[in-house]
């Protein structure tokens, strides 16, 4: 059924449809509407689930480590500072191989206080062993959360579904909300391989000496590789039932493109329009939208970008002392190919600054005008101070 819903409600609907057993969360703008919707669902019986109203984000994820180790499907949502506070437990979740799903609403980090969109919060967590999926619109958010449980439970890894503050979390769009029965067909109940059980007492997460630790980490690395393999199957199954698929990445007009723009989140949506308009004006431009950041689909990225003359990565995030983080990923993916295009990096839309079609067109013109990047990254739209 199609309804016009807020992005936050799309998240909550997906959580309901996934038959999550426990939600544990702490309020933070702009994630709050998600937890408000879910609190309501739990209170009025729309969902048969427990809502744990914990006293911090750290405890929100800690509690889910408890629920998931006891074998029930678990969900949390957070944003910016909240995600930063969870950092220790992000590592713990993947190390414990718990397929917890989190909606993470990209929010800038303080100081100064800024509640608007910026991807640095989630990208700073890319090494924590969570699968990361960046969404472009509310339909994709809803679909991806349902898929995230399928994917995570197949490979025993946690999944972070990432969406832009306000542009997605607080924006109303028409969203197809699937029937419960169809979702049940797609997503079977989770059957954990191990769980806390007094009949079969085990120790979870004990001391591990150098004799075993390395193999355990290697197993997580292997699970990430599995996730890359399983992802298309998860999408195949989804497409068969719901007739929608998104891909690890999406290449738009890339086949004959001389310059390929790379973006993610709602910026990918705006980039689509710019590419369409520039194409109409005869420019040979394409767009590579990155959805799956961890595991990074290196082969696909290489294949799409190989024939371009230039790549221009738009980053709504920054790693101080280096460059935009998507640009790092793209450069790393390309460097071991014999011949690859130069990678330009443009930093834009930081801390909720508008990332308009004009800004993206300006980025395209800059890349076109230059033979080779003069700097690792270039900040676009800075005011004079």
């Amino acid at each position, binding site marked *: 059924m199609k309804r016009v819903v807020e992005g936050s409600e799309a998240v909550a609907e997906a959580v309901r449809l996934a038959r999550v*057993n*426990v939600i*544990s969360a702490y309020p933070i703008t702009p994630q709050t509407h998600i937890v408000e919707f879910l609190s309501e669902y739990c209170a009025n019986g729309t969902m048969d689930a*427990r809502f*744990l*109203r*914990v*006293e*911090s984000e*750290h*405890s*929100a994820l*800690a*509690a*889910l*480590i*408890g*629920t*998931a*180790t*006891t*074998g*029930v499907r*678990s969900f949390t949502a957070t944003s910016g500072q909240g995600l930063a506070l969870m950092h*220790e*437990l992000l590592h*713990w979740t993947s190390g414990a191989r718990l397929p917890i799903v989190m909606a993470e609403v990209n929010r800038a980090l303080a100081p100064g206080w800024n509640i608007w969109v910026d991807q640095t919060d989630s990208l700073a967590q890319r090494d924590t062993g969570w699968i990361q999926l960046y969404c472009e619109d509310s339909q994709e958010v809803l679909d991806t959360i349902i898929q995230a449980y399928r994917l995570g439970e197949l490979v025993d890894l946690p999944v972070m579904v990432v969406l832009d503050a306000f542009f997605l979390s607080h924006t109303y769009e028409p969203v197809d909300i699937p029937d419960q029965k169809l979702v049940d067909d797609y997503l079977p109940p989770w059957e954990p391989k191990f769980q*806390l*059980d*007094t009949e*079969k*007492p*085990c*120790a*979870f*997460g*004990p*001391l*591990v*000496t150098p004799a*075993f630790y390395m193999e355990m980490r290697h197993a997580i690395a292997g699970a990430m590789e599995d996730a890359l393999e399983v992802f298309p199957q998860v999408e195949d199954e989804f497409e068969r039932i719901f007739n929608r698929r998104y891909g690890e990445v999406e290449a738009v007009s890339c086949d004959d493109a001389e310059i390929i723009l790379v973006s993610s989140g709602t910026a990918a949506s705006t980039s689509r329009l710019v590419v369409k308009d520039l194409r109409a004006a005869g420019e040979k431009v394409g767009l590579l939208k990155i959805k799956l950041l961890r595991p990074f689909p290196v082969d696909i990225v290489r294949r799409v970008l190989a024939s371009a003359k230039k790549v221009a990565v738009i980053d709504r995030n920054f790693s101080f002392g280096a460059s935009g983080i998507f640009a790092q990923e793209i450069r790393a993916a390309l460097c071991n190919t014999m011949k690859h295009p130069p990678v330009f990096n443009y930093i834009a839309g930081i801390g909720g600054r508008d990332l308009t079609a004009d800004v993206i067109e300006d980025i395209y013109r800059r890349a076109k005008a230059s033979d080779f990047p003069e700097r690792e990254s270039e900040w676009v739209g800075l005011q004079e101070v």
Partner: protein
Amino acid sequence: MEQNIHENEYIYPGHVACSGCGAAIAMRFLLKALGEKTIIVLPACCWSIIAGPYPQSSLKVPVIHCAFEAGGAVASGVRAALDIKGDTETTVVTWAGDGGTFDIGFQALSGAVERNEEFIYACYDNEAYMNTGIQRSSSTPYGAWTTTTPGIEWKKLRKKNIVEALVAHRIPYAATANIAFPDDLVRKAKKAKEIKGSKFLHIYSSCPTGWRIPSEMSIKIARMAVQTNIFPLYEVEDGIKYTINYKSKEYPVREYFKLQGRFKHLSDEDLEQIQEMVNEDWERLLKKAGENP
């Protein structure tokens, strides 16, 4: 003496505690009281090691090790999941040291107790960060040497009164217990199991390594802590009803301090001052229990 202690053992021989470890004794009695339908939530502490390295476990009940500050939250999650699965029989116990309770874990503990989660939070208190090598905690008593309060910098602050902090939450049940009084410990653990909501057990657990005492003195010193009123045995129901479980012999604190290397630098004046503090605390407790000194 009346025996209410079950003969079953839930700790395997071969655990890796130091000899004379009060924390190992405390766990032994706790599990004898609670039985096999128990899940232990274990934030970082000495017991993270005592429980044994992968692929072994020294406990016959399930254990979930967790982050240092997360004991209250992880237990909340385990309880919620058991409820969803319809398991109301299993007791969830967070088993934490004083660092994980008084300091880094206090927020999650306070949150869980404010929510009145159905679980027992048991703190085995050895009065410093023993697992990392005897660093002071907010449970370290006035006068103690630790590796972070060395020489003339011995701790000149009082031990945090954790039971009073929990009582301020109106916790349904809070009690002190001591490894030298196993009957009392077992009775309190069993009582905690029967009471609904959050329960807190504060268990005095001597540490021969950190306190600089011979391992065979572990129980004797624990007993003296009660006999001197340094660690009174009492329980508080619903944050209101105080009951003192041991009528003090009011032995002078000097005897307790003189036996421990961690206090050897204290002068007679220091010990007098400590005696006054202990007397004051004891009188306050008597008043709360409605017993005039």
